[in-house]
């Protein structure tokens, strides 16, 4: 048992964080709001490819670094901190590894890994796609489409830098197997949401230390302190669920840990009711393995991180007061990203329904 990160994971996280802190500030985000296909934004995409970010989940023999989900989640959290307006979750965490596993049937991988192309993904065509005007590739469960094989209708997202669109296929596409697109997207979004939540908290902590009313910093008032303590608790309790789900993605048959069940002796614990039986190991014997365990872990991560980031956003806005309620202050761009990602790849209540289903309480929600 070791709930921490290895040197390699920390190194790639820090490399990305360091790069983003220099190159992906508020100015870049404002530029993405004005023009999501702007050259500065594309340049950051290329630079991330040079660091190897797009290929983190792609095996080395297919041109990636094959580092794994924990590194991916740490990196995505850093991009969340910066509210980076690029489809990194879709490209690096969803599309590239699935395409690589399928043997790259459409020849998409090269351009995605070298930073010249982007991929957008969603759990189905009735979901909104980000980066709709700039992505060269569109992925839904089981099928990959080239830009000229779809019709894109722009949708005004509350977050203009999302560049959202409704996508309809008009061509054949190619088969890209993989029934875990939604798990990948949901976990990637969860990791970004942890970063967004931490950024909202940090920026607000900084603000309430500076802003003075009644002759003192407003951060000295207990009401303000308690707002931010609640946000910190929600975000820091959600984060380990995200890292654990990342580990679980790479270890789907790993022991579930006693938590997944642990009913009183003799009673039918949740997993005993629904989990596949017969696996070895005491703790595994009481928790769902494989797909059920991954679903539980991912849904927990997505629901908790969405709610935590929402809460951090509300507390951040409240503590900023009227200045936060403007588009002149940068806070709104972080808030709006939270609202979008909380809805993407399954809302919190959608994921709670899935958890309930794993506990034997009702049917799972439909995917779309």
């Amino acid at each position, binding site marked *: 048992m070791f709930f921490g990160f290895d040197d390699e994971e920390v190194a790639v996280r820090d490399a990305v964080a360091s790069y983003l802190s220099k190159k992906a500030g508020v100015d870049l985000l404002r530029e993405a709001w004005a023009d999501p296909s702007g050259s500065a934004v594309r340049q950051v995409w290329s630079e991330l490819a040079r660091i190897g970010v797009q290929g983190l989940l792609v095996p080395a023999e297919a041109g990636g670094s094959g580092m794994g989900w924990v590194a991916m989640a740490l990196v995505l959290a850093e991009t969340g901190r910066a509210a980076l307006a690029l489809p990194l979750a879709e490209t690096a965490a969803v599309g590239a590894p699935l395409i690589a596993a399928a043997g790259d049937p459409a020849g998409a991988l090269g351009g995605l890994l070298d930073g010249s192309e982007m991929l957008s993904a969603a759990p189905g065509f009735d979901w909104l796609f980000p980066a709709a005007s700039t992505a060269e590739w569109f992925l839904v469960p089981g099928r990959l489409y080239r830009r000229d094989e779809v019709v894109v209708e722009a949708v005004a997202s509350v977050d203009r830098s999302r560049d959202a669109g409704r996508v309809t296929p008009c061509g054949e596409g190619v088969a890209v197997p993989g029934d875990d697109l939604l798990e990948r997207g949901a976990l990637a979004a969860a990791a970004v949401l942890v970063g967004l939540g931490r950024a909202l908290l940090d920026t607000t902590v900084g603000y309430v230390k500076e802003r003075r009313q009644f002759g003192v910093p407003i951060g000295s008032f207990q009401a303000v302190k308690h707002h931010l303590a609640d946000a910190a608790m929600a975000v820091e309790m959600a984060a380990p669920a995200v890292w654990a789900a990342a580990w679980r993605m790479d270890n789907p048959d790993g022991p579930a840990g006693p938590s997944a069940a642990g009913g009183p002796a003799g009673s039918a614990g949740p997993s005993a009711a629904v989990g596949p039986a017969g696996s070895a190991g005491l703790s595994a014997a009481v928790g769902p393995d494989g797909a059920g365990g991954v679903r539980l872990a991912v849904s927990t991560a997505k629901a908790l991180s969405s709610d935590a980031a929402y809460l951090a956003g509300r507390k951040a806005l409240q503590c900023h007061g009227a200045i936060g309620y403007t588009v002149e202050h940068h806070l709104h761009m972080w808030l709006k990203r939270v609202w979008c990602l909380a809805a993407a790849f399954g809302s919190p209540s959608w994921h709670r329904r899935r958890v309930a289903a794993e*506990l034997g309480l009702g049917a799972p929600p439909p995917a779309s």
Partner: protein
Amino acid sequence: MDLSWSKEDEAFRAEARRWLEENVPRSPLPSGDTQEGFALHVEWEKLLFENRWSAVSWPEEYGGRGASLWQWLIFEEEYYRAGAPQRVTQNGIFLLAPSIFEFGTPDQQRRLLPRMAAAVDLWCQGWSEPGAGSDLAGITSRAERTERGWRLTGQKTWTTRGAFCTHLFGLFRSEPGSTRHRGLTYFLVPLDAPGVTVRGFGRLDGDEGFAEVFLDGVEVGDQDVLGEVGRGWSVAMATTGSERGLTLRSPGRFVAAVSRLADLARRRGCDPAQADRVAQAWMDAEAYRLYTLQTVTDLARGGRPGPESSLNKIWWSEMDVRLHETALDLCGADAEVDGEWMRGYEFSLAGPIYAGTNEIQRNIVAERLLGLPRS
């Protein structure tokens, strides 16, 4: 990251599970917060001790197994999974003992720890006073120097199971005229000493789980001082760190509770709104379990419990209240029955108050974790 357990840890879990399955009383003991129930719980504690399960993480010389923190977590999971009795030795083993290990003299460690593990000495906590609750530094109970030691005078209150315990640990003002955190000393007091009067009274659930302890010129010796004279606050804070952190309420307790909740929902049936609340409770308990694995990894690498323990305390206490409210909702009209879930609900309501109110914890999080200015 590696969230699998080692072979040794799995073997430890198997041994604990087997022993608990064979030994946990078939029908629940009466509440340990009554005289009769307490005595039965002490018998259970002695059985735990005889089989070296009462304090698994302590060194063997004191009656433990020298188990790692990981194994302690595993034992807790198995303990609550098995539906084993509440730990009436908890205030000693989990709250006082960490301070004795850190600040106690070798003599105190030899003298006190084995008797504590064996449930011979039963410890209760003497922090709060009628005028010092959240504002704990407002303590006025005093310790006066005598020729042979100290004379204690004052009143402690909200002392859990004080009417049934044999010893009290608490803070007393030992420097006349001192204020706030300075001039306090940490004392270990036998409750059968002349001058001690204990009056038990009913908690919210009606059990006599609370007591007030009056000290009227109680004589104790220098061997009954824990840590340095005048430095009692730091010693006490080490204990409250344990209390808010993982030792008081390990994840195993909530994992087991939420599992019983899911059982209840399956048995009685539930509507989608109730299923949503059960799912939330399950996720909250899981989040606490994972957060704790992160904490224990840090501690195993030499970290110290910090203000993060206040995050723990707010989380588990508020989660526990929601969990029980969900259970009562599932019970329907039977919710009012003074049974398992209502009792659990009443107990959960104490969580946001004891071990430092959640308002105090939020101040600690804001000031020490986030760095906001003190008011």
